[in-house]
């Protein structure tokens, strides 16, 4: 994985010193809260319901074992023993004290991590496919390009005060595990007819209060030119984005208002001016970064079969293990969704254990997924059983990837100052209702996604079943939507009907699922496909009678 050079390290260290000074001045009342708030937000420090919340960036969701061990240690030392992995492949701590934040950031900086650009109207952490570099279906490793985007976007002076936040996702497979069409810019690596590598460029996707699926604005931009092309996109957005209205300030609104064609024309015109300036990284720099993502030392003699004689292990393999591009290896997903647990939460001890297991079984590397799970991407098939046993002992081997209990939930009203309703208890109640594994496996792939307010941090628009918490005359209420997807077949879920109480929404989900089981063509027809085939009516009938 990428290691900081002296420039990266100097930037991050300088930022810690600067923030330490700012905190000191705030605590000495030399600056007011109004002056201080934007400074702390630039360092990922929010004030939430119970305390300060710190959001730490995990570039394209990739962590070393050492970094994960430090994240666990921080949870114990500065927080209350746990952290929350988010849909943006980051980690959030919920109980941070301002006076301790500079020391915490210094510990992060020592392992090449920070919280810069995890808030504010700038280019946020770049997200990517959690299987990057290992996926059997990718055309090339997207991480070097994501890393270059990280370097380009870090402290980019022109793009530090955009009209609104800006999120970029990069992937390299036809099977989209990074929801690229729901980002401000989505980049999909592919090969053109001549076999050259380049990106398909999606612009103007997003969730929040006005969800949009990003249109393609360019089918192919060579990898040697994608940075200047992104620069052109950002410039057009920076100039014409709706700074007058926060609800219309995202690039998706600009693209929608002027139309994809006109937006594309403007980007191309801007790019024509930029391209001759040689803003793109020189080949040597690409090569330097690419070399840092060289494949680990795979053992060519690793046996390419899995001993499935342990039935519980075999179930986990069937659900949580994916194909690797190297024979003898596999990709293992660690579920952070034990039935009844809090989606995405991991204790300090779990983080430390996963760090140890990564060192032992997966070349010391871990990935965070946008569905709030963790991945060991390079595990020998003959070591999967040992890995599984160690995970199972720590409640980390729930075989439920992409099943009904693998629920995405934002922090919701239990933590978040913007929430209308709680998300976590709804996720827990649904998981408990469907705890039976045979029932889950019978239902098959079903992605439930829950947000506690219209900001859609829990991706409810992209849920096969989406649940949105709303405030109904001071009471928590939940809206049910069906038919969304964040994968290559991206679609936006549609509201089914009037909302429910917490208990009511769990019953409604069960009715929807039972209706699906009754009407599916065969057990292989997924919920999403059945919904697309028959439409909302049978589900409305089942829920509202």
């Amino acid at each position: 994985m990428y290691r900081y050079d002296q420039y990266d390290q100097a930037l991050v260290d300088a930022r810690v010193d600067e923030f330490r000074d700012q905190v000191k001045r705030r605590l000495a009342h030399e600056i007011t809260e109004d002056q201080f708030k934007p400074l702390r937000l630039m360092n990922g420090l929010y004030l939430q319901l119970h305390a300060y919340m710190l959001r730490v960036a995990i570039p394209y969701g990739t962590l070393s074992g050492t970094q994960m061990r430090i994240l666990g240690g921080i949870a114990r030392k500065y927080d209350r023993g746990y952290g929350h992995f988010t849909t943006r492949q980051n980690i959030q701590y919920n109980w941070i004290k301002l006076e301790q934040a500079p020391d915490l950031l210094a510990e992060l900086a020592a392992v090449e991590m920070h919280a810069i650009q995890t808030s504010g109207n700038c280019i946020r952490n770049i997200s990517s496919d959690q299987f990057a570099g290992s996926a059997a279906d990718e055309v090339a490793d997207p991480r070097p390009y994501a890393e270059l985007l990280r370097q380009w976007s870090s402290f980019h002076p022109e793009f530090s005060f955009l009209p609104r936040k800006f999120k970029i996702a990069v992937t390299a497979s036809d099977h989209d595990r990074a929801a690229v069409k729901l980002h401000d810019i989505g980049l999909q690596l592919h090969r053109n007819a001549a076999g050259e590598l380049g990106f398909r460029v999606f612009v103007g996707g997003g969730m929040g209060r006005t969800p949009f699926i990003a249109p393609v604005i360019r089918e192919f931009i060579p990898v040697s030119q994608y940075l200047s092309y992104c620069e052109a996109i950002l410039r057009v957005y920076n100039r014409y984005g709706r700074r007058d209205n926060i609800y219309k300030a995202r690039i998706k609104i600009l693209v929608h208002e002027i139309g994809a064609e006109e937006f594309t024309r403007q980007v191309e015109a801007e790019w024509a001016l930029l391209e001759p300036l040689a803003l793109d990284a020189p080949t040597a720099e690409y090569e330097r970064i690419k070399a840092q993502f060289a494949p680990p030392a795979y053992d060519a003699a690793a046996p390419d079969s899995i001993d499935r004689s342990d039935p519980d292990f075999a179930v986990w393999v069937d659900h949580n293990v994916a194909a690797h591009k190297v024979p003898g290896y596999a990709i293992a997903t660690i579920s952070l969704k034990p039935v009844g647990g809090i989606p995405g939460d991991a204790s300090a001890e779990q983080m430390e254990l996963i760090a140890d297991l990564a060192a032992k079984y997966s070349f010391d590397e871990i990935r965070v997924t946008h569905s709030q799970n963790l991945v060991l991407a390079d595990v020998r098939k003959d070591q999967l059983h040992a890995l599984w046993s160690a995970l199972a002992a720590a409640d980390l081997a729930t075989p439920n990837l992409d099943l009904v209990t693998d629920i995405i939930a934002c922090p919701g009203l239990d933590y978040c100052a913007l929430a209308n309703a709680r998300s976590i208890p709804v996720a827990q109640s649904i998981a408990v209702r469907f705890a039976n594994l045979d029932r889950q496996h019978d239902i098959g792939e079903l992605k439930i996604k829950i947000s506690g307010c219209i900001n859609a941090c829990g991706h409810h628009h992209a849920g096969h079943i989406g649940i949105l918490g709303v405030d109904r005359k001071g009471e928590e209420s939940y809206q049910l939507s069906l038919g969304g997807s964040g994968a290559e077949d991206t679609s936006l879920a549609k509201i089914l009907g009037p909302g429910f109480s917490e208990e009511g929404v769990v019953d409604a989900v069960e009715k929807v699922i039972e209706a699906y089981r009754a009407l599916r063509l065969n057990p292989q027809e997924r919920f999403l496909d059945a919904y697309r085939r028959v439409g909302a009516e049978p589900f409305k009938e089942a829920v509202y009678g």
Partner: protein
Amino acid sequence: MIRLLTANDTLTGDVIWWSGKGWSLNLADAVALGAEGDALLAEVVAAENVNDPNIIEAEAGSPPRPRTMRERIRGFGPTVRADLARAAAPHPDQTKAA
């Protein structure tokens, strides 16, 4: 309904309640504000010694029971982690799983 003054401590971020003499970490110490409430809030806002000061409504009691779920969660802690409960009193909204 009574009215309570609440905020977050700048140093720690903790939820705090106006006890009449100063700030308390315990909702049970919160005093019902009288007519002086709004002037007190204006003073606290101007001083900028605490974050996000606000007046909220609650049912009288020991501890008082804030009217909205949001304020009860601030007062008692997340409903999903019994081990992180804030005040001495049991959480009125704790989930079974917690």
